């Protein structure tokens, strides 16, 4: 049994309204020095050792991320 983390982020060319809103809020809060914020998704899966990397990639590629607009990384 292991914990697998999948992080999904919008492709850089797609506008990220949520990240943009956070960036604006930082300005209002008076926090200086942050030049960009992107918001993505973070998944934590409890996975049996029998599940191989191929299966995980498949899950990330078809379900957890939408490859049309998103990229993902898997950490095992």
């Amino acid at each position, binding site marked *: 049994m292991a914990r697998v983390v999948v992080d999904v982020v*919008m492709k850089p060319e797609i506008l990220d*309204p949520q990240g943009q809103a956070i960036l604006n809020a930082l300005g209002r809060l008076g926090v200086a020095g942050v030049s960009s914020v992107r918001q993505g998704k973070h998944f934590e899966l409890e996975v049996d050792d029998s599940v191989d990397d191929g299966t995980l990639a498949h899950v990330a590629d078809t379900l957890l991320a*939408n490859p049309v607009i998103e990229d993902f990384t898997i950490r095992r």
Partner: protein
Amino acid sequence: MTFPGSLDDRDALRAVRLAGAEPVPLWHGEKWLSDVQAVVLPGGFSYGDYLRCGAIARFSPAMESIIDGANKGMPVLGICNGFQVLCEAHLLPGALIRNDHRKFVCRDQRLRIENVDTPWTSLYRPGEEILIPLKNGEGGYVADHRTLDELEGEGRVVARYLGDNPNGSYRDIAGISNKAGNVVGLMPHPEHAIEDLTGPSTDGLTFFASVLTSLVGQA
């Protein structure tokens, strides 16, 4: 077609009925076999819109039949959540993301119908302006520039928002079609503009009347 969490399914049935066709309720869990001639994927929050809108529904058994039918030319209209499902299923290009103002928005929206060559829009006049409800939290249409150029170049932008862009959609896109034109996705809700009593207009009925006419014409 009802997925768990579909909401405007009854309204789609009503719209089909008022257009004079016979509505048939379909259930996501069944690879549908009945001989329907066109399908509406309704609005709503299938699977709660969890993960991404439409991301889970697109794996429903019935979607296999839909994809199959769509590839063979059957008219398919995805409204709102249905549009999201069609994008997730790659029947339509691009994706729909959270509104740029990050709030759900429900309002009466003016649109321009730009493509009247689809079975769903054939009875509109080219460039016709209509008013129908819009209600969504994740209605921002996005795609890469190449795709957008292609959509515009091939005349596949079915409808565009007029006035303020309500959700940050690229190039004010409200609806698109596939290459063949039989699959159409639309963010606003024509099925809620079919009666004076309950809608802002009856402009939406033409979507359903169009498909009926197209089908009758074929037969």
